[in-house]
Every structure is written in structure tokens, then in C-alpha cells.
């Protein structure tokens, strides 16, 4: 599903990614690990086409995303669900609306919105919080909103950038359980994390990056 071929990215004199190559198969759950600043987020940003490499190819379903025209980028992103470390929820919209907006963006028929949003909110355990605003939620609940928003569009791929980074261990475990459940339903997940406990506990393939170089695949 995802393939990086000899990808290099420099920020001035800093070598963020150096000739990185790896692949992720359909239905896989892969951890991107490494210390802060190793290049994990850069990889996720390239898959999202938020950043372009200096050289190399980034393939998503055999399409080189680096070659996409600007107007094709939204369509690429609509096929992916994204979960951020800082949640990135819309502060002036309710939980329900935060999830609903992903469907609106993806041009899903409005008749389906309510049913699909209710379904994912139930899945992430936020049915009773649907009318609350983000300021009224805990960190774990905010992350579940972010996850619900990623799931509601039924994406092929879920990119999670340190989804447990801001959460306590118990809440992080809850989020991991949800991700495991989603993965078992056939979704591909790429999760950037440096949370040793989670990596050891989950037992999935690890792609370790250090100073822009992959040290194992």
C-alpha cells in the first residue's frame, strides 16, 4: 500500500531523511519509532503530501504522491484517516460536528452523516459526549474524537502521529485497544511513536529511524 523508494529530505544542512526505503502492506500495523527529530513525522507528512521529498518516490496504492497536482491532494487525503498527537480537533464545533466535518469534506451524502457519526462515536465510546465541545473533554476523550474523525470516512489507511504522546498510560492503552480493533477490521495503520511500553506490548512490525536513516525494517 505504501512504498518509500530512496527518499531524501534536507532542511538546510539538517538531513531529515537519508535515502529511506521501506514498504507497508495492506492491513498491516506498523510502528515508526525513533527518538524525537529522527524523521518519523516527516515520513507521515510525505505520505499526506504535506511535504515533498528532495528526491525519491512516495507511492500510495502505486501512485507517486510526489507527482500529484495540488488539486489532487485533497482526494489523496480523503483516503486516509489521520490522528494527531495534539488532537487537532475544531474547538468551536461539538464532538458530533468534529466527526461530521470529515464526512462533509469527503463528499459523503448528507443522509448518511448522522448514522455514520453515531456509529463511530459508539465505537470510540463517546456517544454520551456527542454534544459537548472540545474544551469540555479530557485528553483521552479528545484523542478518541480525533480517532473517530479518522475512522468515520472508512479510510484505507490510518496515520497516527504520536497518538498516545499526550496521554497517561491507562488512557493510552485504551487508544491502542481501539487501534488494534480497527486494524483487525482490515485497516492499515502506520503509527509514529517513541512510547517503549506500547511498542513492546503491541508486538507489531517496527520501522526504526535514527537521524534520518532506517536502522531496521
Amino acid at each position: 500500500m505504501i512504498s518509500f523508494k530512496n527518499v531524501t529530505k534536507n532542511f538546510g544542512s539538517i538531513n531529515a531523511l537519508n535515502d529511506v526505503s521501506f514498504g507497508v502492506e495492506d492491513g498491516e500495523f506498523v510502528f515508526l519509532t525513533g527518538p524525537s527529530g529522527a524523521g518519523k513525522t516527516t515520513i507521515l507528512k510525505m505520505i499526506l503530501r504535506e511535504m515533498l521529498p528532495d528526491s525519491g518516490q512516495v507511492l500510495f496504492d502505486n501512485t507517486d504522491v510526489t507527482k500529484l497536482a495540488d488539486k489532487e491532494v485533497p482526494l489523496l487525503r480523503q483516503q486516509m484517516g489521520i490522528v494527531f498527537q495534539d488532537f487537532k480537533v475544531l474547538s468551536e464545533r461539538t464532538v458530533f460536528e468534529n466527526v461530521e466535518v470529515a464526512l462533509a469534506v469527503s463528499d459523503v451524502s448528507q443522509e448518511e452523516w448522522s448514522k455514520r457519526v453515531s456509529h463511530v462515536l459508539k465505537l470510540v465510546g463517546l456517544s454520551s459526549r456527542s454534544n459537548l465541545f472540545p474544551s469540555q473533554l479530557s485528553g483521552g476523550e479528545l484523542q478518541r474524537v480525533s480517532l473517530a474523525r479518522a475512522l468515520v470516512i472508512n479510510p484505507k489507511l490510518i496515520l497516527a502521529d504520536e497518538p498516545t504522546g499526550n496521554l497517561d498510560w491507562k488512557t493510552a492503552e485504551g487508544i491502542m485497544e481501539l487501534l488494534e480493533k480497527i486494524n483487525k477490521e482490515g485497516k492499515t495503520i502506520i503509527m509514529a511513536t517513541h512510547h517503549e511500553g506500547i511498542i513492546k506490548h503491541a508486538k507489531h512490525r517496527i520501522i526504526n529511524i535514527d537521524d534520518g536513516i532506517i536502522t531496521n525494517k
Partner: protein
Amino acid sequence: MSIHSKTAIDAIKRSPFQAISAIFVLSLTFFVATTVAILVYASNKSLSYFETRPQIISFLKNDTTVEAISALQNKLSQDIRIKDVKYVAKEEALEIYKKATEDNPLLAELVSPSIFPASLEFSVTDLKLAEEVINEIKNEAIVEQVGFTANIGGERSLGDVVERLKSISYYLRLGGIIFVSALGLTSFLVLLIIISMRMTSRKGEIEILSLIGATPAFVRSPIIIEGVIYSVVGVLIGWTTSLISWLYISPSILSYFGQIPVLPKEPLQFFILFAIILGIELFTGLLIALTGSLIAVKRSLKRVK
């Protein structure tokens, strides 16, 4: 309600003072625009009234024969400097008098057709020729007296009246265009600033929407709808206020100007005139909203990228 309309209305509710200032400026613009449009209409109507009236009336002597009148009428009709020659008999003159004094029927009852002279009314092709033609017609044997419609208002010649009206109409139009354009530009800039502020305050939201796959059109839509709401509300408030003002003062204006049709006397015609102005203003308002919103969004999206 679409998600874009809901987002736009929520944004208006969250920043009511921005919305009020935008709507206030737009209302003021369209109030002035409606008022100026009516003033231009009134000046055009006055001008047209004076231009199309018979400019010269030659009152005929009482004992004039039909043959002599017919001969003079033919002579005038063949003169290339003269147009629209019309014979007004004594009875018709009385009817005109009755119409002019319909507010006081007693005045009409006190007179008979015999006291009104028959006349030949006509216009000249160029007002510069009026004096020359008048002097010639005065020498005709059957002509008792020559009158000018220009005498009303104390003007010495019709040319003065028409020229003065043309001048008023021109300056009214020019002043109106400049004033309304200045207000239109102010509205446009206010809208641009408010929408730019809205884009800045929504920067975080736009980034998130963009990351989850929102197209630029998706990001733009609520902002454009917001601009359109400001414009439409501004037009409706400005237009309605002007309509109410004109409805209030039109009886006095119509009574003051008497025969001169500065405003439509029929209610239906009056409302049709205002409906046409409303249509033009809605179109202009939408144009201002769309242009302002698109420019502000384009500039802001560049900064977000």
C-alpha cells in the same frame, strides 16, 4: 441547512460586532444608492417632462376662421425648425384648465370655454431657434399672443429651464456616482478586512480541514456565504429604509411638483421602480460580496499554505 451555511451563521454569531459593522456600512451604501437612484430618476423625469412639453403656445385671436387656423398649422408643419404642431380648441383648453384645477372644482365651474383662446402648440427642433421662431409667429395676423412653457419658475426662456435641469441632472448623476462609488469601495474594503480577519481567526481550522482532505472550495464556501449574507442583509436594510423614507415624503413631493411627474403617481409603478432598484442592488451586493470574499480568501489561503 448545509454545513457551509451553518458554519457561516455560527461565525456571524460568534463575532456579532464584525457582522454589525459590515452590515451597517453596506446598509448605508445601499440606502444612499437607492436615494440617489430615485433622485436621478426624478431629475430625468423632470427633464423629459420639460423637453417633451410643447415649448411654444401661440394663442389665436377669437374671430379667427378655421381656414386661417388650418393654413397657419400647415405653414408651421412644413417649417423644418418646428415639430409636433397641435391645435388646441377652446373646449380642449377648458378641459386642460379643469384638469389643472381638479383640486378645486369650483374654479372650473366659474368659467366657460369662450374665455379660453384656441391655440397652436408646437416645439422647436433646437432651443436656440426658439426666439427667432417666436418673433416670426408673433407677426402672424391671427396670433394674439405667444407664450412659453418656460415662464413657470420665473425663468425667462425655456432654454434656461431645460439647460438648468440638464445641468442639475448631470451633476446629480455625477455626484451620485462618485458618492455611491466611494461608499461602495468602503463597503468592499470593510468586507475585505472582516473576511481577512475571519480567515486569520480560522487559520487553525483551515489547516486541520486541509489535512483531512478539504478542497479549497470547501474552505472558501462558508466565508463566501458569510460575505453574501452581509451583502444581502445590507441591501435589504438600506433599500427598505430608503423605500420607507420615500413612501413617507412622496405625497409632499408629488404635491409640490404638481404636474411634473418626478415620482410615479401609481402605487404599482412606484413599487416596480423600487423593485428594479432592488434587483440591481442585489446584483451589485452579490458582486461586492463575491469579489471581496474571493480576494480575501485567496490572500489568506496563500498565507496558510
